[in-house]
């Protein structure tokens, strides 16, 4: 069997088109630049006396239009490849791009359904709905959800197991057919093999699952810790604030990389430090929920008791499993090396969240509705959790998105230094680090995880940007 081409049967038609699109785009860019330097300006809209609009198109406008259509053409070609992959059945015709597009079919369906529903009902969906008014936000959300669905459907997308080794396939280039495939096995390594003969494509896809398993959860924990401590620090002020702020600044003054090198080592795991840290840090979510329900329902004893009991039971069940690996039901556990990574990431992130929350509380607590609550005789925790927090959600959600991206980068850094992750783990940081060794000869194992990580973080940042823009419009 032959090597797959990147573009398959559609290549001869679409490749020249794509090239042309790129060329036009570059020409447009240069033209635009030169014309602007030469003092030309884009045409302005004029309102005529008969209430019609005229646009005086200048050469700059034409250059910009050319660029716009070039981008659209390029995107259309990409779409064509994916659709080509879906409708053609022979991998040779699909090409690598088409075949990958076909593997991602569940993701495309999920994305289309999600976007169709969201756009239809966007007026009823609050801030989330408004996201679909901003192009940047939509692109970001699309990228994030792409990887999210990839993580969810990873099991059906992958073509091989992430740690399956086929020794003849080591370092083979993208699109290499298997030498003697088993019945029913996929016939190609779509993105080639790594230095152990594992499928780069499948590892990249499974890597999404590894990353998205830890990053959002760790960020969420960091937010719980930051909010639980930041609210009282900002609201009460005084000594409590001074002490907490000092501690937060202390952690922030620690260079992240030094902290990781000190914390994420087998010796520290031996000494039990991660368990102690987890014991402290994982307590905050429980406190958060207990206080949350307690303050809300303290006038309704039955409801209050029920909610608190539920959060205590679920909380301590998770707590014993995650922090001490002692889940009485034996369902939840976290291996030591993942725990230390998780705890370190939470530890690094929570002081920043604390500072943000504290700052917002300092601002909001002077508002009238807070004073009104105080006059009504509401307890301080009720005011913090049910008056202040909901009003602080905008900036917090934006920061949450940014912070997941930052956490992803941190996890990659850990993987890059080989700290804490298990050696065969397909997570992107470790695969980049492994691929980097042979980078100058075989770039194909390192580039897919690198680009994947970049696109996920980019998506999160764009999403945050879109959310910020839309929430500012309120």
């Amino acid at each position, binding site marked *: 069997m032959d090597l797959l081409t990147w573009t398959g049967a559609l290549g001869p038609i679409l490749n020249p088109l794509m090239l042309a699109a790129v060329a036009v785009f570059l020409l447009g860019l240069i033209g635009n630049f030169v014309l602007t330097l030469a003092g030309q300006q884009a045409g302005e809209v004029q309102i005529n006396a008969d209430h019609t609009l005229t646009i005086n198109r200048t050469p700059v406008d034409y250059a910009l239009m050319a660029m716009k259509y070039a981008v659209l053409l390029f995107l259309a070609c990409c779409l064509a490849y994916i659709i080509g992959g879906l409708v053609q059945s022979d991998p040779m015709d699909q090409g690598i791009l088409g075949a990958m597009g076909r593997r991602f079919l569940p993701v495309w369906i999920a994305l289309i359904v999600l976007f169709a529903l969201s756009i239809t009902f966007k007026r009823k969906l609050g801030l989330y709905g408004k996201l679909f008014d901003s192009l940047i936000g939509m692109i970001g959300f699309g990228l994030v959800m792409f990887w999210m669905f990839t993580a969810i459907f990873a099991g059906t997308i992958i073509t091989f197991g992430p740690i399956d080794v086929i020794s003849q396939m080591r370092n083979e280039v993208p699109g290499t057919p298997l030498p003697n495939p088993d019945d029913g096995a996929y016939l190609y390594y779509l993105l080639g093999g790594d230095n152990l003969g594992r499928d780069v494509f499948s590892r990249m896809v499974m890597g999404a699952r590894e990353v998205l398993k830890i990053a959002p959860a760790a960020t969420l924990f960091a937010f719980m810790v930051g909010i639980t401590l930041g609210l009282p620090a900002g609201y009460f002020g005084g000594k409590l604030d001074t002490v907490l702020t000092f501690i937060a600044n202390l952690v922030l003054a620690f260079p992240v990389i030094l902290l990781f090198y000190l914390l994420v080592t087998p010796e520290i795991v031996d*000494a039990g430090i991660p368990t102690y840290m987890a014991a402290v840090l994982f307590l905050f979510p429980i406190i958060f929920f207990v206080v949350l329900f307690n303050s809300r329902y303290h006038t309704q004893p039955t409801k209050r008791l029920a909610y608190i009991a539920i959060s205590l039971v679920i909380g301590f069940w998770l707590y014993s499993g995650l922090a001490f690996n002692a889940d009485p039901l034996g369902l939840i556990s976290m291996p030591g090396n993942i725990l230390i990574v998780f705890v370190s990431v939470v530890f690094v992130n929570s002081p920043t969240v604390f500072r943000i929350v504290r700052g917002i509380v300092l601002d909001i607590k002077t508002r009238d509705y807070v004073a009104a609550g105080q006059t009504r005789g509401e307890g301080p925790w009720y005011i913090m959790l049910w008056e202040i927090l909901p009003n602080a959600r905008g900036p917090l959600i934006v920061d949450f998105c940014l912070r997941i991206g930052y956490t992803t980068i941190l996890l990659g850094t850990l993987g890059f230094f080989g700290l804490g992750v298990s050696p065969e783990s397909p997570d992107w940081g470790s695969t980049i680090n492994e691929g980097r060794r042979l980078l*100058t000869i075989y*770039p194909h194992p390192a580039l897919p995880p690198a680009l994947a990580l*970049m696109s996920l973080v980019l998506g999160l940042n764009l999403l945050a940007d879109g959310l910020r823009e839309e929430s500012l419009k309120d």
Partner: protein
Amino acid sequence: MGLFILRRFGVMILTALCLTFVVFFLTNLYPNLEKLAKTQGNARMTDAEVASWLDRNGYGGPLIVRYGEWLGVVPGWTREGADGEVTGRCIDAATPAEEAPTFCGLLQGDLGYSTVSDDEVSNIIGGRLALTGVLMFWAFAVMVPAALIIGVLAGMKEGSRLDRSLSTVSIASTATPEYVSGVIFIVLLASSTAGISPWLSEMGWIEGRTLFLGSARSAMDDVTFWNFTLPVMTIALYGMGYIARMTRASMAEVMTAQYIRTARLKGVSFRNIVLKHALRNALIAPFTVIMLQFPWLLTGVVIVETLFNYNGFGWTLVQAASNNDIELLLACSIVAVFVVLVTQLISDIGYVFLNPRIRIS
């Protein structure tokens, strides 16, 4: 103002004390000491031998006392061996027991001894810091002007096409950590088998095998454009986006201010508004951000120095941490913490000085 600086200074000392104690505590946990004993003595020591080795080499006392010794507020340990030979913290080949000082810690300017390098920490760390200083200087020299230009151009007309494209560029740059951009740069520009170098070499446009060098080791002796571009670009790229976004936000805010509107209405040209009125006020916020970038860059420095084999401070930190070279690691953290705190102080003071709206009585 004096009191403000004094108080900041006090907090800074307290922070430094706490942080070094944490580092001291973590590096002196028993499993780490055991590892140290086994690397320094013999990989196959029994538990009893480890304990006696630790005791013999001054790791036996209570943690807090040893921390005091390291600081130089508790007398350094001494110990008389079975053969009457006196060993001690302050005693080495150059200073025999009789002449040795009682205290030898940080306060006396003694940073201790690096077990892996077999040398005084102070001999090691100075040169490494200078190397990193050079790297940082060039990274800042590239990053700050580029970021400010992008930020100002983008913030000039908020929502314009220029703003959109530049903002996307800066978002993309913050989404590209050093270990991704470094890898891509090396493939594209510094590999003799991939990227553009083989092509350039074939065309006879470059003399060497690659356009840029993928290893910055030669830059330790002699910085050239070819051996330093990639490390500097890799560091600068990641930090640039963040500063650019801050500048843009600040610029955009200034551009909506009353006095700018007034100037516009008075018919001042756009170019003059930007250059003469808006720019100075727009740069206050980025200044603090730039100062706070120093500690943030440290991670980048560590990654880049590892990736490009540049034996500077970041590289030393990795070596010290992975070999549990306690006193070298402590010295590294002192430097790191010092940099963080000093830049915070400068950014605070600078903010006060630059911002006409804040006056401290």
